[in-house]
């Protein structure tokens, strides 16, 4: 037996001024299954709420319709009333007779009629609504952080310091990321290592952070609160537990190859650490250049290792970790300017990239901080910086990389301060000095005599004898084409997504923005969230940004992840889709339309049927419509409910 109670709110005169509430109540009371209909001045007030509560208890109401303001205002208030009276809160419907009737129409009779229809529709729906209970899912209270550059480091430290466990996975053999490659940082000119290395040490000594270096996350399954990650720990060619980091092996290794970490500006050994302060301070054997591995000769490292840690044949290990949230901080790659052929990178020795210059300027870099030109090792006296290489360019990347203006100015200043006699030119189209203290920094560079040339460099050619690059550019301020012979050119290359970002994107089911970086859930209001619940973004994986912005976002991502893992369990909305396994044909059309990956096909006896993960489903109903034979329904938004509401909506007289 269905007993529906209908409560019509006057909302002072907001509703009652236009709608004849008393007549309406009388009409409504005659509707099928409606056992009582009352009107009251302010239904949301305490006495109003008590009215409903008492009726549920004493008049045995089992469903309630409140005709009042928009459900966006007080639906939750009334849900609580139902719950407090022991009735399932999903057996409530709101007829929005204020925003949709009394506030938008003037004719008393017509508006009252419309209000009746709206109530009738709500009655038709509530009659068929099902009682629902929110499910809860346990949360694994630890976070996986992918990438241990400054973003991943900051996120991990924040989470660990608040008291939650972190699994931090870094692809390279040491943590530190791109920031560790940099010499100094703008606009304060702090030495990058001086501010980064203490944080790196903090990571390695924090008991809440489980660190995997030289490792990659290969697979992630599960959903918010319950992810499972498969991590490949690549072989370093030695037993890490034995290695003391004494460095003897590196010293004695006879092989020297160009160092990737030094952007090919210096050499490294076949067994090597990236830099002296590496965390962990354990070397890796490069299998491609190791003489023992490639030719079966040498074996010096094994001979000299005092603890016998070297193990050439050691294989990769696989580890599984369970986490409740994931932060992706996988960083960026520098743009490769080879494709901008007019600049001759890779052809002219004295044309280098900004990141190569960083390595030269780095006190622990291949030249111990002295800038020399690659062709002859001479100290360049005239240096030109070329801005926007690969950025703001329809033929390469359309976006602005946000850091190149400032790093070029910073490096120009560093060189100028070290060699005041040198002449430095920065070819730009706009200088974007948008951050705190950046414009002042730019001004300082101008005052120091760095020459800012407005014009995009058309081409670079080389004087064969001197190997001096010559810059040809339109000086748009002078209005003339200029040729400028310099000792060295630095291309200010921008940022592009990491080469493996599409793999990570697929693995996690993330979306990518048109620029190829991972897409945030909302450009303004959810900048660290993704469309996959429980997965957050930090740093340049989301788009080009500088260190201050990266750290800020990393802290945001930490708070996002903590928002998940600080709960023992998650309450899941029960307003989701549901599969009737008997009807399901297992065609997978629903799976194809689900934007959240909430649906998978599972085997049931000999059949395949769709299964919806209630923790992932958002209740949008897309799958319901995609299903050809009605095997999926969206709870309390079923076809029959809609049809009943349509009948109620169209049955009334106008």
């Amino acid at each position: 037996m269905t007993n529906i109670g209908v409560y019509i709110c006057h909302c002072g005169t907001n509703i009652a001024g236009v709608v004849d509430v008393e007549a309406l109540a009388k009409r409504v009371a005659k509707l099928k299954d409606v056992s009582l209909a009352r009107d009251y001045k302010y239904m949301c007030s305490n006495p109003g709420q008590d009215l409903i509560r008492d009726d549920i208890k004493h008049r045995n109401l089992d469903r309630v319709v409140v005709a009042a303001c928009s459900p966006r205002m007080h639906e939750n208030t009334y849900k609580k009333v139902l719950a407090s009276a022991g009735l399932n809160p999903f057996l409530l419907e709101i007829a929005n007779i204020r925003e949709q009737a009394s506030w938008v129409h003037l004719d008393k009779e017509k508006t009252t009629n419309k209000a009746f229809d709206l109530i009738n529709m709500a009655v038709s729906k509530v009659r068929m609504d099902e009682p629902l209970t929110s499910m809860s899912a346990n949360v694994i209270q630890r976070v996986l952080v992918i990438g241990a550059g400054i973003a991943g480091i900051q996120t991990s430290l924040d989470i660990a310091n608040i008291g939650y466990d972190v699994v931090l996975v870094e692809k390279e053999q040491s943590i530190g990321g791109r920031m560790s490659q940099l010499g100094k940082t703008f606009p304060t000119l702090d030495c990058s290592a001086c501010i980064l290395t203490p944080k790196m040490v903090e990571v390695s000594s924090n008991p809440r952070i489980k660190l995997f270096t030289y490792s990659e996350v290969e697979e992630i399954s599960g959903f918010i609160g319950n992810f499972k990650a498969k991590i490949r720990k690549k072989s370093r060619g030695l037993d890490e537990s034995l290695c003391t980091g004494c460095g003897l092996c590196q010293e004695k290794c006879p092989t020297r190859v160009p160092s990737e970490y030094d952007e090919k500006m210096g050499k490294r050994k076949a067994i090597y650490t990236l830099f002296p302060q590496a965390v962990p301070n354990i070397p890796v054997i490069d299998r491609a250049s190791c003489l023992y591995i490639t030719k079966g000769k040498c074996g010096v490292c094994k001979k000299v290792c005092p603890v016998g840690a070297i193990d050439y044949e050691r294989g990769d290990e696989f580890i599984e970790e369970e986490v409740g949230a994931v932060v992706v901080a996988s960083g960026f790659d520098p743009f490769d300017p080879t494709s901008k052929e007019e600049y001759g990178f890779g052809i002219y020795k004295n044309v280098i990239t900004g990141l190569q210059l960083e390595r030269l300027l780095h006190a622990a870099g291949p030249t111990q901080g002295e800038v020399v030109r690659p062709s002859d090792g001479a100290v360049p006296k005239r240096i030109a910086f070329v801005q926007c290489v690969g950025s703001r360019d329809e033929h390469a990347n359309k976006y602005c990389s946000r850091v190149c203006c400032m790093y070029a100015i910073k490096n120009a200043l560093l060189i100028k301060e070290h060699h005041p006699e040198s002449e430095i030119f920065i070819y730009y189209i706009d200088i974007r000095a948008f951050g705190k203290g950046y414009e002042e920094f730019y001004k300082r560079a101008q005052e120091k005599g760095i020459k800012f040339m407005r014009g995009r460099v058309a081409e670079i050619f080389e004087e064969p004898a001197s190997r001096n690059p010559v810059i040809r550019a339109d000086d748009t301020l002078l209005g003339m084409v200029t040729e400028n012979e310099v000792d060295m050119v630095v291309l200010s290359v921008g940022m592009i997504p990491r080469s493996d970002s599409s793999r990570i994107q697929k693995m996690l089911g993330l979306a990518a923005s048109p620029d190829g970086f991972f897409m945030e859930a909302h450009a303004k209001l959810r900048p660290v969230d993704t469309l996959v619940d429980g997965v957050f973004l930090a740093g340049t994986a989301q788009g080009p940004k500088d260190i201050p912005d990266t750290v800020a976002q990393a802290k945001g991502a930490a708070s996002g992840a903590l928002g998940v893992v600080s709960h023992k369990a998650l309450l899941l909305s029960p307003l989701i889709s549901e599969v009737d396994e008997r009807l399901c044909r297992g065609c997978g059309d629903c799976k194809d339309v689900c934007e959240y990956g909430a649906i998978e096909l599972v085997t049931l006896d000999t059949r395949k049927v769709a299964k919806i993960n209630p923790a992932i489903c958002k209740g949008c109903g897309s799958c319901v419509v995609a299903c050809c034979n009605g095997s999926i329904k969206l709870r309390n938004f079923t076809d029959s409910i809609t049809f009943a509401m349509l009948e109620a909506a169209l049955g009334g007289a106008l």
Partner: protein
Amino acid sequence: MKQIIKRTKAYYCVECGKCSGSCPVARVNEGFSPRVIVERALSGMKGEIEGDRELWTCLTCEACTTKCPSTVKFSEFIRGMRSSAFNSGYTSRCSQGGLLHSIQRVQSYRDLVQNRLQWISDDLKTSTEGEVLYFTGCLPYFENLFSGFVNPLEIARSTVKILNKAGISPVVSPNERCCGHDLLWTGNVETFQKLARLNVEMIKESGASRIVTSCPECLRTLKLDYADFLEGTDIEIVHISEFISSLIKNNDIKLNRAGIMTYQDPCRLGRHMGIYDAPREVIKSMGELVEMNKNREESSCCGVSAWATCEGNSKQMQIERLIEAKSTGADMLVTSCPKCLIHLRCAVHNQIPVEKEKVDIPVVDLTVAACRALAGE
């Protein structure tokens, strides 16, 4: 209910269970048993039957009727009970969110002016009046909804082409309505009757003395369920397979060889109307016929009837049928019902539970195959 029991001879039931044993649904759906439904009816449980979702599961394929030693007309019985349930406020499910039944119901409005003849291309000859009327059925609507994986209007075009070849320019009426088969079989008798009346008016206006259908459901409905409405007229109603086979017999058309074929008997054409030989003769005249194990009276169903019974087990039945067809070694599976075609194609749409090779056989409508094989075309 008593009347239904009487009309369908349900009281003859000896509860032997032969029906459930031969039922293609019961084989895959444990909850469904024709025997149990009849037993319940006999013990007067009207409300339970009307409220039972299994009432809508029966495919009315007549596999049980054919076998029943007591000649209980189970399909008729189900139809009667559905009508009774419909009047008590229960409705069947319908694929596509109810869209198909809705399209059919809309056609029962007298003043409707449809655009259902857009498919008639310049090379096809049709008339507004004449002796032969081609009843196209739902094909234009199927084209709207299923053109992604089948080509329903090719059946209509092929039918007219073959009729033209025989020197007939058939009447194809814009005023044709859905025959009402699906609504009748899902209990909506009132709307069925409206449709029947409108169609009979249209048929009478056309002056036709012969109706050709390319759909076995239209054939059954017009021939059997329209009997009362057509009383007093002398109109012959034939399925296109019968028509083509007579053309071949009279040497009016000749078909080229088109390969090895196996044949799916549609339940309405076979068990309902007893037409088994005509389509086979057509096939034999254009190729080699290899039969599946289950054929003629024993033939399995395509799994869905009246757009109301599509379930997980429907797909199982379809997949099994396709495997059976593929294992005959035939080049194609021929059927003579547009719905069999749609359902068997739908079964292999997107994900399938077996290896693709096992069910990888083209499904072709008989008329389309015959039209493609027309000599001299």
